[in-house]
């Protein structure tokens, strides 16, 4: 690696605030108004599609189908019908509160399990020596490309033989498995950049792998875990494919399954998806906003290289 940074064991301190503002002033002199303009342009371009959906979700069915959402500004027609229809179990046939809970119950273990397993594995790959290490690492990395569809049939056969089909276990186990290759790849990239002097120092003090992992690495890594955690959270939360096969039954089906059925047998009620989509976005965006600060610090700690 090319970064030759001084060793920092305490990445966050009170002086950091001042340093940042110093850097910010330095930065300001370098940024031209064109740069700000470019940032605004990108932000606007990226937001407009979602904004259109937001506006649409408050427009009546007929208006959605016949006029563009921007006509809202010249002819504002506001209705909560779409939200009412989506939230009313008798109207849409979808029980959103129940499936909301199902989504949460599915997602939380499916984030925690692969995170723990992947950090153990990533640690082993980064800081241990054993034969076949690189081959195994590359093999795991390459498994990312296996299309999930080919795994569904064999996995379901296995779950049926274990008699856990139709339970949350199928989803937890399969999502955890599918997450591992990318999780190990990303975490390995951060773990291996922890200064080796830190690890060595701990070793000289007589620490074993377990205590090095917990006392030295985990504090540095927690924020990086938060970072991968949110990505995994989003993937599981938004997954349709795995849930359809393993958790299609109404008792345990998540939001995405209910959402995709919301538009009706022949897609007639597609306009209802606008409201449905916004309800399903709420949780991931909240999680992102809450975890964002960990995020930034997390990858920061990881990229320091001695």
């Amino acid at each position, binding site marked *: 690696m090319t970064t030759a940074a001084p060793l920092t064991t305490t990445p966050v301190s009170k002086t950091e605030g001042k340093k940042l503002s110093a850097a910010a002033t330095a930065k300001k002199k370098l940024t031209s108004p064109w740069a700000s303009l470019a940032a605004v342009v990108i932000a606007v371009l990226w937001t407009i599609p979602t904004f259109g959906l937001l506006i649409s979700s408050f427009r009546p*069915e*007929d208006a959605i*189908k016949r006029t563009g959402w921007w006509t809202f500004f010249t002819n504002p027609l506001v209705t909560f019908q779409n939200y009412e229809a989506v939230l009313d179990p*008798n*109207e*849409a*046939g*979808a029980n959103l509160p129940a499936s909301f809970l199902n989504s949460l119950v599915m997602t939380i273990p499916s984030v925690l399990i692969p995170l723990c397993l992947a950090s153990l594995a990533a640690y082993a790959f980064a800081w241990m020596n054993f034969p076949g290490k690189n081959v195994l690492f590359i093999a795991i990395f390459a498994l990312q490309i296996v299309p999930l569809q080919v795994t*569904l*049939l064999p996995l*379901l*056969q296995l*779950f*049926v*033989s274990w008699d856990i*089909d*139709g339970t949350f276990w199928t989803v937890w186990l399969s999502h955890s498995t599918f997450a591992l290759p990318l999780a190990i790849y990303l975490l390995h990239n951060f773990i291996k950049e922890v200064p080796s002097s830190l690890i060595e120092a701990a070793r000289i003090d007589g620490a074993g792998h377990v205590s090095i992992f917990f006392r030295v690495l985990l504090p540095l890594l927690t924020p990086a875990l938060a970072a991968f955690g949110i990505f995994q959270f989003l993937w599981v939360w938004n997954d349709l494919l795995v849930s*359809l*096969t393993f958790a*299609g*039954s*109404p008792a345990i089906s998540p939001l995405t*399954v209910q959402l*995709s*059925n*919301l*538009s*009706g*047998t*022949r*897609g*007639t*009620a*597609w306009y209802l998806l606008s409201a449905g989509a916004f309800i399903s976005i709420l949780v991931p965006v909240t999680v992102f906003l809450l975890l964002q600060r960990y995020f930034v610090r997390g990858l920061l700690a990881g990229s320091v290289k001695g």
Partner: protein
Amino acid sequence: MFVQRGSSRSRIALAGALSAGLVLSLSACADDKEPSGGTAPASSLAPIDCAPYTAFGDLKGKEVSIYTGIVTPEDTPQKESYKPFEQCTGITIKYEGDKSFETQVLIRAEAGNPPDLAYVPQPGLLQRLVATGKAVEAPTEVAANVDKDFGADWKAYGTVDGKFYAAPLGANVKSLVWYSPKEFKDNGYQIPQTLGELKTLSDKIAATGKKPWCAGIASGEATGWPLTDWMEDFFLRLNGPEAYDKWIKHEIPFNGPEATKALDGVGEYLKNDKYVNGGLGDVKSIAGTEFKDAGLPILDGDCSLHRQASFYAANFDKSTKVAEDGDVYAFYLPGETADSKPVLGGGEFVLAFADRPEVKAFQTYLSSSTWANNKAKVSSGWVSANKQLDVANLVNPIDALSAKILQDPKATFRFDASDLMPAAVGSNAFWKQGTSWITGQDTKTTLTNIENAWPK
């Protein structure tokens, strides 16, 4: 199943009270809706007479799981129609609707995790499901019901390798043309009785400067299917039912003179820029227009005619009146002559993966005319090919029309060909090549490409 047999003494009172409450609450929600355009149930099945169900015995505590592609809002009348059976026998029906049913049911069946009953919308898929070895043959009671109340052709669609597996459930009529009764009245247009008259009518409307037809074949990964229906309707009309059957079985090639005649016949309408695409654009726009939006220009007066199945009624919003004297209605897509009445249609079939007594009992109920009439009373946008179906029970005029077409003794019914052909053709090449045909590919190339995709 690990449910215990319980005492049945208090069951009728309790179950009755519980489900009556359910029915009441459901009907309360349903009552404030217009029955015309939407698919909301018009009324629930009021006082239930348990007499027809005593033969099924006591099924208290038993469960039957159903897996189907019928989702909201069409699932409500489905569930509603099971209520009398549930109340009188004590059985619980677990209903799972899933839009990805067609791909998922195969995975589940192969993995050994199938539902008790699946509603299969295509005979082709039925054959693939039977091939997994997990399906069970229909019980004799079901076969007897089907022999009694359905035509032999309908029984044949549920039969694989000489064994009868699946009884028909619902049906739809595809040979319909949607129009605006008001426009016809104002301009003195007559409902055409032959294909020739349809052409004359189209020319007449086109002469006013209006594009008479609107069409759309986009439908996500299934884009192209509405075109296959067009071609099948024309094949049936121009070549007759015997040639149609041979075409499905590949006894005549897909790209033979019959098919060429049929597709060119469609081309006279859909590739004619004087005729299409009313309110939607040029010929090419047919490929990009969602099928569910394609008939809506009729309401705005931008288009006069739209060929689509009976289930299209659900696409008009609740304020639209679907009736002979309403905003929009449909007429039968006529045959070559006024006497020939070929009808193209589709439907679902009930395939069982278990032969427990309660599954058999429910399967039998579904194949009975009792169920068909129960279902008719709570549905809108639904018919059955059951001959005992009383047309008077159908609330929606378009359903009554469909039922009349199906029950007409002069009608020759044929099932949607693409649902009967091998999947590589019926669910792939036919759709894809049909779409390319709309965007400019010639008839010969199109048909040859589909012929080449036929599994050897």
